[in-house]
């Protein structure tokens, strides 16, 4: 039965158990995708803890070959199976709700995307079960490291096909979300009345649709090279593979970032009790930002001497302009707002502060002379993790604490949420800040041991302690979710006095999302209604 009493079964009743696995309801597809992605996040996190143990002990926990498998599968899991899919899954869930649609566009494609994610993830991880072990050529899978001579066996094959399957699924999801935003909007929901999160998903999907095919081409060439040879010949073949890979590999960083910018924007707007400051400038900045992010891939190849360094340094540095506009809009929204320091809001502030560190160190590696010094060191690892973990993961948790009541109908515990936040801030900075120092001193990435004479041991121990604190924070979060679902505190339709359409329906939303919609006169229709009611109450 649907929530509105309409019979919705298209499968015969005897197949009812299959309905959960074959449901095209965008909310169910997205919820499954989030659960799968989070499971992969936990698995990838365990790999990270083993790596950190190895570096704190300065070798001795695992061999170099196993260490190669660990960092390859950690990076691959976090990028291909966690951050990208969870961001797109948030779009699958919330974009139809935010634009007043009954369903996502092409729901069967969304369902197929979920199964491709599961199949791809299982394929990649099943490499651990093969005699040759899992892939060892890093999440980039660079040729010639990934060819049949240097990476023989089926582990690498499984990695190639796993990544290809997951990427095809992500292309399907991006198409669904983009078409929902562009073609399924409710009457009155013009483009410039779409919520900020929906706009961030639009640009995320644009980047996905026009950059990700390069990865599929690169993987196809890599597979052909492994089986037939001569496809990526000599040095120039390796450069071409990198060109193709990084044409995907830089936009994917923004695919792993923009959805969480949208979550933070919605969170701070709601908990400041204000409309989002500079909405139109923000939308233009997003589109410009996304376009620029397609044109900076060469900065990953500065030290190769085979790309147009000046062009890529220019475009990479130009990214600060739209990024600055976004930060200005965040601060403008907070300025003189009636701030409510909920857990979601704290995570949003954590994102704004910590991502700044990731962003500013990005300017350093966007400069070729500095990049020559820092390339392939732990400085790059620190920069990347400050953007994706200290940034995007905090944005994700802001979104989870903000939307959990809408998705489940139950409130998360604020007390446990604050403990989670404090532990995660401590753990994140303890883990990743020492890496800046290690990188500046020349510690290379992907090494499983280092000479004692380097005095890197102390900083590595500090970093490993931090990773333990992150694990503790994650356990607190899991306990919070379990407790909140077991002993439910009902959320009601709109517990936060939020602004956008998803809060105009029940929690969780019914099968077709809305029984009725309020008039849509701006990108904050619920705030419009509240302001209208206040004006009506006020004495003339």
């Amino acid at each position, binding site marked *: 039965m649907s929530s509105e009493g309409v019979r919705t079964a*298209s499968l015969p009743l005897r197949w009812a158990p299959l309905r959960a696995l*074959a449901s095209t309801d965008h909310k169910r597809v997205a919820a499954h995708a989030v659960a799968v992605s989070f499971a992969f996040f936990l698995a990838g996190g365990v790999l990270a803890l083993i790596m950190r143990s190895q570096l704190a002990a300065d070798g001795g926990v695992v061999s170099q070959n196993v260490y190669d498998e660990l960092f390859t599968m950690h990076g691959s899991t976090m990028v291909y199976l966690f951050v990208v899919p969870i961001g797109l899954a948030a779009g699958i869930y919330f974009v139809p709700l935010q634009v007043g*649609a*009954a369903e996502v566009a092409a729901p069967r494609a969304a369902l197929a995307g979920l199964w491709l994610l599961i199949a791809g993830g299982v394929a990649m991880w099943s490499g651990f079960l093969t005699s040759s072990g899992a892939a060892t050529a890093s999440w980039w899978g660079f040729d010639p490291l990934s060819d049949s001579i240097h990476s023989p066996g089926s582990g690498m094959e499984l990695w190639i*096909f796993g990544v290809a399957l997951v990427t095809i699924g992500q292309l399907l999801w991006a198409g669904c979300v983009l078409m929902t935003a562009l073609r399924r909007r409710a009457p009155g929901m*013009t483009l410039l009345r779409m919520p900020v999160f929906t706009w961030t998903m639009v640009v995320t999907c644009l980047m996905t649709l026009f950059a990700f095919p390069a990865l599929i081409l690169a993987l196809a060439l890599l597979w052909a090279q492994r089986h037939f040879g001569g496809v990526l010949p000599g040095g120039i073949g390796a450069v071409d593979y990198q*060109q193709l890979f990084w044409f995907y590999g830089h936009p994917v960083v923004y695919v792993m970032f923009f959805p969480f910018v949208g979550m933070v924007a919605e969170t701070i707007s709601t908990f400041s009790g204000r409309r989002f400051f500079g909405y139109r400038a923000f939308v233009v900045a997003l589109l410009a930002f996304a*376009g620029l992010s397609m044109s900076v891939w060469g900065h990953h190849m500065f030290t190769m001497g085979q790309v147009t360094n000046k062009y890529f340094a220019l475009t990479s540095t130009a990214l600060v302009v739209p990024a600055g506009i976004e930060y200005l809009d965040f601060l403008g929204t907070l300025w003189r707002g009636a701030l409510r320091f909920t857990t979601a809001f704290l995570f949003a502030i954590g994102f704004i502060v910590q991502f700044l560190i990731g962003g500013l160190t990005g300017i350093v590696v966007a400069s070729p002379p500095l990049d020559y010094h820092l390339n392939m060191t732990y400085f790059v690892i620190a920069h990347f993790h400050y953007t994706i973990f200290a940034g995007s993961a905090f944005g994700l948790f802001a979104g989870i604490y903000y939307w959990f009541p809408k998705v489940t109908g139950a409130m998360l515990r604020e007390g446990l949420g604050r403990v989670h936040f404090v532990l995660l801030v401590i753990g994140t900075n303890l883990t990743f800040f020492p890496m800046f120092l290690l990188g500046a001193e020349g510690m290379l990435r992907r090494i499983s041991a280092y000479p004692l004479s380097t005095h890197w041991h102390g900083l590595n121990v500090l970093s490993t302690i931090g990773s333990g604190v992150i694990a503790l924070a994650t356990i607190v979060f899991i306990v919070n979710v379990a407790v909140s679902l077991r002993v439910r505190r009902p959320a009601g339709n709109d517990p936060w006095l939020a602004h956008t359409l998803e809060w105009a329906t029940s929690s969780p939303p019914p099968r077709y999302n809305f029984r009725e919609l309020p008039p849509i006169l701006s990108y904050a229709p619920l705030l419009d209604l509240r302001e209208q009611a206040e004006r009506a109450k006020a004495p003339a």
Partner: protein
Amino acid sequence: MRRAAVVLLAWGAWLGVLTAALLPFTRERPRPYAPHAIEYWMLGGAAGSCLAAGLVLWRLDARRRTAAAAAAGEPPRLIPDDSIAATTLAGGLSLALLGAGFGLWLVLMGAGVTALGAGGLIRETRARRRDLAAAGAIGGVAPRTSAGTARITPAAGAPGTIRPGPGPGESR
């Protein structure tokens, strides 16, 4: 208004500008630091395909508006509740692709499952057409709610919601 297509057209044009911005660097020396053909192809290809997608969307929207004007409203759209066929198709494609690394036997198995899934999708499409025809027979689109959604009754054998889309004069 065809603003949906404008997003793609504007973004495609922006990528085109960024591709053209490579041109002033062609005199860069030594030669490896000047733009390579692959850089033009990749960024220019993304720009071109985005513009092409925008034009297709523009054309589709124009056709939809013409049809909507002729029929005084969009034709109803059914939403599926579940699709075993889509799941089967995804599973079949996964097996077939993995088979490229593990042998013809897996490719053939995957192809078989894919064919099963494709057949299921055709069956679902035909059932949807039948349901829509039945909906027309019992009076077609139900009254619109303020959400712009409407339903056909379970008696028609067709589950789901019909979205009539925007009415005349309403912009997308």
